[in-house]
């Protein structure tokens, strides 16, 4: 292998986030300063490897986990930043706007946009459609004392997302039909197991 080819490969491999990022993946700031101010923080960064590892440790017998296992089988990343504060608007809107701007890129469509001036709440749900498949999902929710960014990457089965209703409380948004959502269904029945002595 000559030096020129080696240099090209090295350049490609060290190209940084743009190369490493999958389609549908957003650049989400770390918000490390905010973690210290927040009363509650949820930070999840699961790439394809970690998702695969996580799925192996989910139980097929727990209905919630079984559904999660099915959903993540075709995903390549799940990224969540969720912060709760004790005072209103303790977070910089500018950083969130930076994430929103990425969703103006071609392919992304906003499928739900809800603003409540009374509650000062904004929730936007975006989907990246590539061909006929959803390859990315983004949710940006800002409330006076909370903000949340969710980015799900990969082959997203919107029907499976519907199936989570009742287990994770995911509502039936009927995203693909564009109709108004149906009322929430009650949780799926879970039959009690036959108990046995613990180990």
């Amino acid at each position, binding site marked *: 292998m000559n030096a020129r080819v080696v240099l090209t490969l090295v350049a490609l491999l060290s190209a940084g986030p743009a190369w490493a990022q999958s389609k549908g993946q957003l650049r989400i700031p770390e918000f490390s300063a905010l973690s210290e101010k927040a009363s509650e923080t949820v930070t999840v960064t699961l790439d394809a490897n970690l998702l695969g*590892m996580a*799925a192996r*440790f989910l139980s097929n017998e727990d209905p919630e986990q079984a559904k*999660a296992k099915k959903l993540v089988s075709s995903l390549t990343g799940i990224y969540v930043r969720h912060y709760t504060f004790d005072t209103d608007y303790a977070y910089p809107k500018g950083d969130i706007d930076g994430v929103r701007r990425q969703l103006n890129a071609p392919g992304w469509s906003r499928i739900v946009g809800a603003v409540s001036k009374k509650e000062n709440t904004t929730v936007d749900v975006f989907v990246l459609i590539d061909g006929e498949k959803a390859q990315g999902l983004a949710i940006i929710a800002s409330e006076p004392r909370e903000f949340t960014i969710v980015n799900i990457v990969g082959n997203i089965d919107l029907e499976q997302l519907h199936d989570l209703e009742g287990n*994770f409380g*995911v509502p039936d948004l009927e995203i693909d039909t564009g109709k108004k959502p149906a009322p929430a269904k009650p949780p799926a029945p879970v039959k009690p197991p036959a108990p046995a002595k613990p180990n």
Partner: protein
Amino acid sequence: MNENFEDELRRRLRAVDAPEGFAERLMAALPAERKSTVVAFVPKAAHPARHFGVPAALAASLLVAVFLGVRVANDREIEQQKGIAASQQLMQALRVTSQKLDLAYEAVNSPPTAGDEENRS
């Protein structure tokens, strides 16, 4: 959610008595003395091979096998811990996702009030 239904739930969900004799059966099952057990590692004799008549090379390779076995077991345990942590993170991520979709759903389903914009789905 109305308070009457919640009060009814509280009434019907008040704790019931444990079975007759539960405490006695439990106390009978307790160990005689409540002290922590300490397992002390006792090193083997200096020359196990000579002591048991096992050739030194075989003894050495057995020790290496045990060491590697312990190391593999440790690595497996670390891997398992990573996997469990990742699965817990995954479930938490999905719960947060569902909550926020829930918020969107409520906004979509609530009748618009003055000052609110309509859902634009």
